[in-house]
């Protein structure tokens, strides 16, 4: 069992989606996350173990390497694609309740901002860390964030902004969320942001990279 879980983790770490995928070149023609996950289930490996001992460790290595500038956005996107392919096989187990995730994470790019690459990276890596992600997309209004919070009690909210002209919308959004739901945790990220801005608007946490967001989220549920 350990071998196949290590293979899954390896495929996630290096972005090997399936046998047909030409990437990475040194794994051309080899099975990928798709085949190994399917095989693991057929061998009777519990879906929860595939998530916790295969996908999560693989994505954790991706997050750390990305933080340390050892890999870059294209490689992270390939890992995320490999993980999504594996997740397709696990979906029935999430739906049946056999596999329980760490919690719910609601994420979106704030109103007026159409950038999605940073938000997508965080979204994919948080999902790979074992969280259920509800991605509201880009240019998300205050009402849509509030609705998502109300529909997903105990979720954590993540806000993204790439522009100085839209980061100010975070302030209004955080204030509104906290007024209606004082205990709601809100984390923020995006190129023009920093810890000072986070403190100024009353958000709970700022992370300059996806792995920091994952570490904060995981600490909340331990």
């Amino acid at each position: 069992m350990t071998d196949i879980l290590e293979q899954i983790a390896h495929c996630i770490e290096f972005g090997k989606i399936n046998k047909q995928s030409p990437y990475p070149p040194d794994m051309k023609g080899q099975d990928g996350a798709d085949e190994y996950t399917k095989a693991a289930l057929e061998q009777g490996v519990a879906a929860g173990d595939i998530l916790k001992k295969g996908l999560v460790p693989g994505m954790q290595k991706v997050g750390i390497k990305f933080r340390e500038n050892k890999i870059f956005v294209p490689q992270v996107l390939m890992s995320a694609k490999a993980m999504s392919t594996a997740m397709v096989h696990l979906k029935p187990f999430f739906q049946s309740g056999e596999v329980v995730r760490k919690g719910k994470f609601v994420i979106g790019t704030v109103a007026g901002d159409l950038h999605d690459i940073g938000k997508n990276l965080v979204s994919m890596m948080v999902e790979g860390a074992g969280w259920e992600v509800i991605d509201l997309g880009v240019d998300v209004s205050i009402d849509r964030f509030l609705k998502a919070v109300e529909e997903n009690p105990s979720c954590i909210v993540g806000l993204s902004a790439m522009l100085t002209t839209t980061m100010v919308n975070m302030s209004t959004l955080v204030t509104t969320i906290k007024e209606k739901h004082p205990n709601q945790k809100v984390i923020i990220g995006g190129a023009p942001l920093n810890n000072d801005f986070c403190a100024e608007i009353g958000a709970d946490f700022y992370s300059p990279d996806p792995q920091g967001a994952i570490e904060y989220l995981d600490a909340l549920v331990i």
Partner: protein
Amino acid sequence: MTDYHVLVESNIKCLEKIGHDAVGLISDPYRETSAFGASVEFSGNNNPVCEPIVASIDDLDLLKNPDVYKSGRTSDRIRAAGYYKKLLGDDIPVIGWIEGPLAEAADLAGVNNILVDILMEPDFVRKLMDICVITAKDFAKAQIDAGCLVIGIGDALCSQIDPETYSSYILPLHQEIIDFIHDQGAFTKLHICGDITHHLPNLALTRTDILDLDWMVDFSNAHEKCKNKIILCGNLDPVSCIQNQKTEKISSLSNKLIADQKNTRFILSGGCEITRDTPLENILAMESYRRI
């Protein structure tokens, strides 16, 4: 920005108030994308939006290099260069602007798609960038002919890729564009937003005259990697420093950067674009030091 008169006249108003050393033609990154046939939507003061028009290698046969003089938005920038020349003469250098090959490919095909395809379908990305280089050179030449002394090359997405991919795919194209601009008698200013520390050894090989450094890049490290052959431009943080700090602090940080870079080839600037909401006195705080 759709009217070159407004761009030039507002920049000259800034020049009168601030007294900086060059004026520019940059607005949004979709001049060339529009010329290729994409639709650009403007909405008040918000950033313009442009949907990708290239999905796969099959679409490249339909993608034709535009005549930059005939397309509305590229022609508008060329006219802006001429208008600057008319109003300012030769006293103030005009910095023209083109999109770099990776940035333009991403504008045409989508950022996420390009970042995945550069690993999964490198032939597609390479062919698309080759097409972009042709237009980049046409557009650069037109702006030089209209009066630009310097051409800025914006290739922001490069900060998000690894050094090997940059070296294999992008560096030769940057060198080709930069050599071409030099052949036309102009200088180059390469701008890649974000942390480019991992690219510095390769960027030293681009043969660019000026390299912009964003705020997160260590200046001394960059000088060492570039062996003082390139003029480095930067790198106060446009948001946490220039927009948000008190003027005394901005002066002090400008002062420190100038002192640190004594006897090096250096231009004081923001690490990236000055933000819309930056108070005028904050920009003057950078300038006031220079005039002491």
